[in-house]
Structures are given as structure tokens and as C-alpha cells.
């Protein structure tokens, strides 16, 4: 187990290094610079000064080595669009906000998604099944900017207590959490439905029923427990996506989170911030995937990570 973990950790480091290298190459190959704005351009002298200030006048190889050195020390550098916060500060400020929404959305998705899926499976091709699947089709297909605008227009504008946008109290988080949750909710519902259907047809379920165990007990003890496994396997990406926030949702609801930076940094060519959020996301993602693999092993006795287990 320790050996396995060590191996995985080495892989994590290599993965992140690859991510850094590819991102670095990609972002510098895109035209543009961090200092241009739409209706303004800056004169050459000022531009040179800015390049010098952020070390962009040096050759790429030198910038790359510099960057790697800094990142080993955990320093993502200065944002080129903000003289107020460093990239570390921006991530440190934005992430808790996005993560809070993400956790709330995850809870909503994980409570209602599997439940919806299970109900649909139990009432296959009957009313509840259709309703559940309509909900999940809506969840998968409605883009979040539409959903966000819809929620603001019809819920926030009509219910005094629910704010239109902004951040601060619990009530600010309600609409964005639901908007974020709908997609994973729909996905988990569909997964749950199909795996439940598969399991309900298995012999051991029939055996359990024929032994005289009540239907409810069979469903809870045997069906649901096994059907939930595929959901665990998608949790890694779902959790990391939810934790780092969504650009669209954060923009529409005016949430000071991390999700915004993923898009705005690229648009602004804010090189340090692009690297910062990409590396940060990579770390979250590989960690989540590692945790999922370990968790999977714990939940499903059929999977063994090491040879000794077989």
C-alpha cells in the first residue's frame, strides 16, 4: 500500500510538471500580451517597461526555469493584471468561495441524483421514471448561463429574501448552488438508473428475494449498495470541477470565486494567473483521482491495488 502510494505520488509530480510545460508553451504561442486592452494600446516605451517589470523580456527558456524554481517554493508569482494581489492571494481568496459553492452543489447532487436514479429504476417505464429522466435530460442539456439567467429572472426577482447576485450570506449561495448542482445531479441520476436496472436483473437479487427478504431490504442492502459504485468512479472529476468553480455561474451571480479566473486570465493573457490556476486545478484533479482510486478499493472488495491482495 505504501509502495503504491509512493508510486502514485511520483506520477502526480510528473503529471503536474507536464501540465506546467504544456501550458507554458501554449500560452506563449498565442498572440497577444497581458498589457493590451480593447480600445487602448500602450506606447512602445511603456510596453518595454512592463515587459521588464514582469521579466517577460527574458528568453522563454530562462522564464521557464525561473517559473519552475518559483513553483517549487509554492510561489505562483505576481498577477500581471493586478498590482494588488499575488496569484497565491487570488487563489487563496477565490478557492474557498468556489469550494463552498462546490461542496453545497455536490451535496445536492449526491443526495438527489442517486435517489432520483433509483426511483426511476424501480418504476422503470412508469410515470416516476419519465419525470426523473425528463429532469435529468434538462439537467444535462440546459446550459448553465441559461439556467442562471432563468433562476435570477423568475426566482430571485420575485422572492425578496433571495438576492439576485453577490456574495456574503447563506442566501447568496442558494441559487448558484442549485445551478451548479443540476448537471452532476442529472449525470448521477442517469448512471444510478442504468446500474440499478442492471443489478435488479442479476441472479443474486432474485436469490435474495426468494430467500424471503423483504423488497425494501433487498433494494437497500444489495441493489443500491452495488449500483452506487459507478457513481464513485466519476466523483473524482466531478468533485474537482465543482470545487474550482464555474466561470459562467460565478459571472452571472457575481461571485468572487476562482472559476472566473480560468477564463478571464486567458482572455487577459495574464500569464502568471493562467499558470497558477491551471497548476492548481491539476493538483486538485490528480489528488481527487487518487482519493477516488483508494476509496474505490475500500468500497469494492473486488479491486485490489497491490499484487499481494490478489
Amino acid at each position, binding site marked *: 500500500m505504501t509502495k503504491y502510494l509512493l508510486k502514485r505520488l511520483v506520477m502526480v509530480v510528473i503529471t503536474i510538471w507536464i501540465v506546467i510545460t504544456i501550458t507554458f508553451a501554449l500560452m506563449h504561442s498565442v498572440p497577444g500580451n497581458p498589457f493590451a486592452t480593447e480600445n487602448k494600446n500602450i506606447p512602445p516605451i511603456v510596453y518595454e517597461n512592463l515587459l521588464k517589470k514582469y521579466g517577460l523580456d527574458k528568453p522563454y527558456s530562462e522564464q521557464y526555469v525561473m517559473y519552475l524554481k518559483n513553483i517549487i517554493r509554492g510561489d505562483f508569482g505576481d498577477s500581471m493584471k493586478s498590482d494588488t494581489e499575488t496569484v497565491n492571494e487570488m487563489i487563496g481568496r477565490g478557492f474557498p468561495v468556489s469550494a463552498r459553492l462546490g461542496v453545497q452543489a455536490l451535496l445536492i447532487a449526491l443526495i438527489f441524483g442517486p435517489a432520483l436514479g433509483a426511483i426511476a429504476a424501480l418504476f422503470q417505464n412508469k410515470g416516476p421514471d419519465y419525470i426523473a429522466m425528463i429532469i435529468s435530460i434538462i439537467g444535462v442539456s440546459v446550459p448553465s448561463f441559461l439556467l442562471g439567467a432563468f433562476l435570477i429572472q423568475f426566482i430571485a426577482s420575485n422572492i425578496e429574501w433571495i438576492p439576485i447576485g453577490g456574495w456574503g450570506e447563506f442566501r447568496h449561495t442558494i441559487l448558484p448552488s442549485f445551478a451548479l448542482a443540476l448537471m452532476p445531479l442529472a449525470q448521477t441520476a442517469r448512471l444510478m438508473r442504468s446500474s440499478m436496472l442492471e443489478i435488479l436483473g442479476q441472479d443474486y437479487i432474485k436469490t435474495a428475494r426468494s430467500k424471503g427478504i423483504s423488497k425494501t431490504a433487498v433494494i437497500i442492502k444489495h441493489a443500491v449498495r452495488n449500483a452506487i459504485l459507478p457513481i464513485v468512479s466519476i466523483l473524482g472529476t466531478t468533485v474537482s470541477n465543482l470545487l474550482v468553480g464555474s466561470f459562467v455561474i460565478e459571472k452571472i451571480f457575481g461571485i*468572487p470565486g476562482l472559476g*472566473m479566473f480560468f477564463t478571464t486570465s486567458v482572455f487577459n493573457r495574464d500569464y502568471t494567473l493562467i499558470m497558477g490556476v491551471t497548476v492548481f486545478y491539476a493538483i486538485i484533479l490528480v489528488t481527487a483521482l487518487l482519493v477516488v482510486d483508494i*476509496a474505490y478499493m*475500500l468500497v469494492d472488495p473486488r479491486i485490489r491495488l497491490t499484487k499481494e491482495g490478489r
Partner: protein
Amino acid sequence: MSKKLLVLMSIFLVVVILFTGCTSPADDTSGEPEDTTEGTKDTGEKKILRTNNSSEPGSLDPPLAQGTHESWILTNVFEGLMTYDENGEMVYGMAEDYEVSEDGLTYTFTIRDGVTWTNGDPVTAHDFEFSWKRALDPELAADYAHQLYYIKGGEAYNSGEGSRDDVGVTALDDKTLEVTLESPTAYFAELTAFYTYFPVNKNVVESNPDWAKNAETHVSNGPFKLVEWKHNDQILIEKNEDYYNADKIKLDGVDFDILEDQNTAWQKYSGGEYDLLVDVPTSVVYQLQQQENPELRIGEQVGTYYYNVNPDVKPFNNVKIRKALSMALDRETIVTDITQGGQIPAEGVVPLGLKDENGNDFRDGVGNLIEYDPEGAKALLDEGLAEEGMTLEEFNNNGYVLLYNTSESHKKIAQAAQEMWRTALGIEIGLENVEFQVKLDREKSGDYDISRAGWIGDYMDPMTILDLWWSESAFNDVNYNNPEYDALILESKSTNDQNIRMENMRQAERMLMEDMPVISVYFYTQPYVQKPNVEGIYKVPIRYPGITYADITE
């Protein structure tokens, strides 16, 4: 439920808590802002103007400001030597008087008595000397340093060639600031109202380089002071009781949200959560105009929307072709049916609102230099094509493209232009949208046929736009090179005689429209909405709507 499932769930929760927990310092500030948001709304006696600043400022240190996200806040918390009064007129600010030498090269400003910083220090001439030299420091790399190149030695210092000591700004004593210019600049006094010229407190900046990073250590000298800055969320400013003109300031404070989404901001305004909103969605502006809603104001703005025509691409090197393109554009239709924000059809390149030597609008002295004449355009096009030895088929087969940066409104205007050119001239111009960074890059490298551009003025003088097309301008993307034009511009830049300057600039604009290196489309406006109980908002064309002297009545 199985134990293993429970284990799984707890692992996830622990990981999630670990992730959120390890970066929690910022959480404390973002976690409990109830007291401020609610507090400002509930205290009935306090007059707080609520509005949206639409983007997070990159810095609230004046020379490091990059645009309107910063300047709207800065112009309320800082004040330069000159400033704007409640009618939007230029008046003395931190200066109580100034004198200009005979040759127009030396300005001597006297600092107003009793003006102080928000930390109690007096505002002195030394602060100005320090601030301007700091803004020109190549290591600070201020985006707007070039606004200070009028000062002798400014450009040399900023380019790293000259020294700080040679910059022509000196505090003779605490009250007297002497400024030497490179050449006479008629609008120099006005420039000192621009935010790059705002002073910073020398002692504060020297003792704490991070002074501008948070509200607690932020020191300013304007009508308001910064009290809270929650990044990407909210900025609160409060009346500065020690401001010399505090009696005239009626608001107790301003609450700026930082909300990027225009539609959400509009929902908040219409839901009564804002008293003023500047960045209004185009469709809403149109709707409000149709309803003749009195809350809508069309603010003046100094800015021109135009198309660059690449003179290196045949047949656009031919002036007749460029003129034909311009003459075929029905600008009236573009502003009434497409942009719909009260924009004004272009009459040249210099927008409305800039004064000439007699105090009249500069445009009145030049007149309308743009004509709409589809038939004339067609004739001109044919002539031009003949001169270039090109047939209409060849032109159409070459697949010329109008390049614009991705945006719904640029797209609609481009489509309209495409259609107008097709019907009037029988030519096919394709459309291509790219991200604005890519567009800038392609303009710089000359890789375009026609490209959309715009310019927003920085100061109230026609030079703010005419300067773009003298041959050595860094912004001359069409490489317009006309020695006569250059001579007119350079002479206007080196004299204080308004008669000569204005006459030169009138000639220059006529010359430019005769050569038509760019096709101007419309003059920008700045629509904004304000609730009926908000008073005293004024619009200086080069600034966001002024809220300094605003009042909220019951």
C-alpha cells in the same frame, strides 16, 4: 448502509475540508460581510449611493490604474491640481492658483491652503513632485506614464535614458510646484485632473510600499476615502470630512459592487438595489429609449468607432476605393437600428464635445466631413478599380475580409456594413471575428484588409484623437504618412496659441478625411440609468458619470 460507504463519504468530506481549510485566511474576510452590506442599506439616515463598478480594479494606486475600473473609484478618492466641479466644469482642485510663463513652458502651481491627506498629513508640492516622478519611473512601469511625457525629461526618464533628477517638476517649497514642459501644451492644466497626475502621499508610499493594497493603509486626498475593499466583490468609500469642499458633498458614501455580468447588474438596478448603473445592456438601452424612460441618460463621451483600411493591400491603397466604402455606409441606420444607444453618426474623426478657441464645439468649425451617397460611391469605386486595373469580379474573388473582435455589437455593425457595401457597391466583403488580442496583433503586423477599431479620448482637446495618425504615432495602425499632416500636428503640439492650434487641427482633420486612411462610423456615447431620486450626477465627456456631488432625495 455499509460501513465502507460511510468511510468513503468521510474521506471525501475530509479532503474537501482540507482543501478549503488550508487556504482559509481569506475565508475570514469573505465569510462574514453581513454587517457591511446590510448595515449600509438599513441605516436610513446615511446617504449611500449604490452602484456597480463592473470589474475589479487592478490597483487603487493612481499611476498603476489601467482604465475605467480603477479611474471611477480613483477620481472620487483622489484629487489632482485641477478638478471638475458639480457642473462638470474645470476648476482648481489641490491647486489654488497657477501661473504660466510667457513662452508657455513653465507652470507654477500654488497648493491650496489647509488641504490634507486622509491620515492628517498636509498635501504639499513635494508630494506632487514625488508622485509624478514616481509615475515616470521605468521600474514602476505605469500604463499611463505617457500622459506625463509633456513634462520636460519625462519621456527620457521613462525610457530609461534620462535621470529622475532631470524631470522638469520641482517643489520650490511646500506650497509651490514648478513644472517645465517639453513644449507649450495648451491643455496641460486640464491634464492635471487626469488620474495619472493624482498625488500620492510621499511619506506613506516610502514607508509602506503595499499601502494601496488594502483599505486600512490606503491614504488619499479626495472628497471620499476608501473604507473597504473586498476583492471581486465590493468597494466602499465614505465621505472625507476633512476635504476642503466637504460642505458640498452630500453623499455619506458610495457602495460599489463589483459585478461583471451586465444583465445581472441591470436586474439589480431594476430591482431597486442600485441607484445608478453605467454599464447598461444594449437591448435595455433600446427598450428604455422606446419607452422614453426618464431614468435613462445618454452621457457624452469622447470616442470614435472606426474602421482601419489597410493601405498596403491593393486596391485599398487607392483613396477612391476607401472613400467609396465610406460613402456607402448609412451611419444613421447603424446608430438608430443597430447600436441603439444614442450614438451619433460620425462627421469626421474628432468626436463632439471638444471646444475650439472660441469655446464652441470643435465640430462646428469643421462641419460634417462625411457624406452618405450610395450612387456617388458606386461611381467612385468604379473609377478607383479602373485606376488599379481591377475588375469588380477580381475584387470579389479576392475575398477581402472585415476583421473585428468578437462581440455581439461589433458583429451586428459589421454585418450591416457588409450589406450596405453589397447593395450600394456590389462588392462582397467577408467577415471574420477574432479575440481582441489577436486582432491587435494582426493590426500591428498589417495582416488585415479592413479592421474595426475605436478610440476613447484621454483629455479634452481634439489632439487626443488627431494625434493617432501622425506618422510616428505608436497607434497609427494604418501607417498613415502625410508630411503635411505631420507638420500641422507638430505645430499644434508646440504652441500655446489656440488660434493657430485649432486652425491647424481643423485643417488636419479635413486633410485626414480627404485621404481617408480610416473610415469613421460613429461617435461613442455612454448611456447610464439613474433612479428618479438621484440628483446632481454630471457627465464630463472623458470620464464616467460624476457622482462626487450627487445627492439622494426622498
